[in-house]
């Protein structure tokens, strides 16, 4: 029998289909489920109303991240509604028997950062969470995607979700990255090329020698933002870099079980001749440090480029939305952002708050001081990242530079807690979304890499990082 060549996505998907019936979406078995305080309370209520429990408590892990304060985490949460949500999560985890990494726990942190660092995220798995950036986990060669609260309830109650298999897209990047160009720039570049909806309906596999050379942290940044081009998720086939990262992590297989797992994981690659529904190819040499100028992540450009004029848009129908977006940002078509004064720098989020990101920032700012016109927040992705940063002395470098290293959480990425960018102010942010009001009502966001954000913190302006001494 000759087997049809398959993509890695198809291999993992097909091996998790509990039931495929005509006219029905696939019932997909879920290996790992992450929950947090914001999108889970209504799901637990649903279970109570139905009188059912959690199917397998060992497959779900909880943490508090979305609306937690990043200062004084040892004190009760001041804001009443946030406090109630975190307390509700505590009660629900206790009632249903789910492990919770609560505030103060050494494993607490942003859900997409703690999964990988604890070895809960592994190759070949199906992983879901009530958060669109679940795509982050795909960096380990698994199928990971965000779900809504009704689906959180499905997974808690049945360990399955009903899903249609997405179409497949291969994005191949080859070549050597230029000076000052990091993985955030790769993904911002791709999204700027294919738009914020360019991968809707697809599950992306990133390949090519540029991707292969990236660390796990850098790969996570790329997979994280798959959703920003509309993709259901994004993954990278596992390799030695992946195995080395996983080895020895708290919940990863240990000893001989690890060796066995590697044998299985090595088979997780796309077969020669497998067909993708769409293939895109990019040259790493074309990528430069990137920045967004608009109110969706597709509105990005090389930091040295000019914002397009209305006449340069592909479709006339886009003009009104484009104009509205630039009005919101207080920017003019056809102008450059280089040298534009900024007010805030946010280094954090599930996109760029891992230890490697903090190290990158530290290399840039070591021995320097922030510009007087900016406020700089560094929000580590997890308690472990925070501890590691302190151990390496990064906190001292940040302190000398006038940066504030706080405690972990989603923070100003979405402004659910107190960390908000004030109305009309400009923030260079290492997060994933520049939507209107995302970082606070009327806030204005420029998305960029940690390196570019650090450079801007020093100069107080939008800066081409390549002009800084590295």
């Amino acid at each position, binding site marked *: 029998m000759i087997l049809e060549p398959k993509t890695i996505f198809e291999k993992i998907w097909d091996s*998790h289909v*509990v039931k495929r019936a005509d*006219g*029905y979406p696939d*019932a997909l*078995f879920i*290996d790992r489920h992450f929950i947090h305080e914001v999108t889970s*309370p*209504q799901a637990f*209520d649903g279970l109570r*109303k*139905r009188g059912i429990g959690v*199917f*397998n408590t060992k497959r779900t892990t909880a943490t508090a991240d*979305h609306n937690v304060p990043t200062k004084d985490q040892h004190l009760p949460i001041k804001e009443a*509604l*946030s406090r*109630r949500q975190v307390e*509700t999560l505590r009660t629900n985890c206790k009632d249903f028997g789910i492990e919770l990494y609560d505030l103060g726990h050494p494993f607490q942190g942003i859900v997409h950062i703690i999964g990988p660092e604890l070895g809960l995220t*592994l190759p*070949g*798995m199906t992983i879901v969470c009530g*958060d*669109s950036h679940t795509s982050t986990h795909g960096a380990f060669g698994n199928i990971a995607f*965000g*779900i*809504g*609260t*009704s689906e959180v309830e*499905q997974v808690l*109650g*049945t*360990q*399955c*979700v009903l899903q*249609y298999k*997405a179409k497949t897209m291969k994005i191949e990047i080859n070549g050597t990255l230029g000076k000052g160009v990091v993985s955030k720039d790769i993904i911002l570049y791709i999204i700027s090329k294919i738009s*914020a*909806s360019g991968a*809707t*309906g697809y599950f992306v596999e990133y390949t090519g020698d540029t991707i292969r050379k990236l660390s796990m942290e850098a790969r996570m940044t790329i997979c994280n933002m798959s959703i920003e081009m*509309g993709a*259901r998720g994004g993954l990278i086939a596992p390799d030695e870099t992946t195995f080395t990262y996983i080895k020895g992590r708290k919940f990863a297989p240990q000893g001989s*079980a690890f060796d066995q*797992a590697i044998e299985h994981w090595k088979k997780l690659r796309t077969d020669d001749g497998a067909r993708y529904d769409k293939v895109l190819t990019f040259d790493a040499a074309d990528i430069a440090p990137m920045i967004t100028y608009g*109110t*969706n992540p597709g509105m990005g450009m090389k930091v040295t480029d000019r914002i397009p004029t209305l006449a340069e848009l592909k479709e006339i*129908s886009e003009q*009104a*939305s484009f104009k*509205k977006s630039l009005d919101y940002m207080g920017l003019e078509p056809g102008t450059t952002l280089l040298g534009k004064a900024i007010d805030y720098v946010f280094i954090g989020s599930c996109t760029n708050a891992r230890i490697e990101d903090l190290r990158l920032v530290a290399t840039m700012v070591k021995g320097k001081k922030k510009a007087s016109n900016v406020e700089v927040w560094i929000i580590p992705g997890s308690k472990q990242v925070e501890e590691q940063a302190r151990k390496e002395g990064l906190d001292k470098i940040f302190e000398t530079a006038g940066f504030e290293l706080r405690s972990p959480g989603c923070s100003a990425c*979405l402004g*659910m807690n107190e960390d908000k960018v004030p*109305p009309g102010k400009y923030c260079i942010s290492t997060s994933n*979304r520049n*939507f*209107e*009001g995302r970082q606070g*009502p*009327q806030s204005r966001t420029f998305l960029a890499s940690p390196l570019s954000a650090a450079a801007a913190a020093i100069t107080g302006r939008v800066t081409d990082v390549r002009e800084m001494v590295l």
Partner: protein
Amino acid sequence: MSKDKFTTLKSQVVPLPSENIDTDQIIPARFLKATTREGFGDNLFRDWRYDPAGKPVKDFVLNNATWSGQILAAGKNFGSGSSREHAAWAIYDYGFRVVISSFFADIFKNNALNNGLLPVVVSDRFLKTLFDTLQQKPTTVITVDLEKQIVEVDGRKENFEINPYKKDCMINGYDDIDYLLSLKKEVNEFDLAHSSI
């Protein structure tokens, strides 16, 4: 939870022609702190609907008496961004039962269908016709017929696609979990087989 059943709706339409309306516009993150599904409609399109002082923005469609109805029509790529189901809850809670656009973000579409809110995908051309018609006559009543999968504006009809399973769920008010619970035996086997991971 079992939902309202949906077959046909005749209603006026509220137009929102902007493209790429993301979930942070539909319901800003700072309003996601409730632990129930109700009440999100009060903050639907919050930052477009109210000024920073909390006063209604006069021209915004939800504050303008010209527009009413249970159908929302929006520009392409509606619902992009976060997976927050609160976006679908807010639209439903406000009183909408249908959203028409030429393109929806995946997760939003799923969330809408899971909550009895029908996302209707029409062609760019049909959407433009709809916006033009509403501009000329804001009280235009349109028909969305789920059984026949037809949307009709002023005698102009267009078919829309919907997955047969999801259509069945909408018409009968079923939800996915009933089906998944019926697979318990098979899932148990999977759970054991995948336990080594």
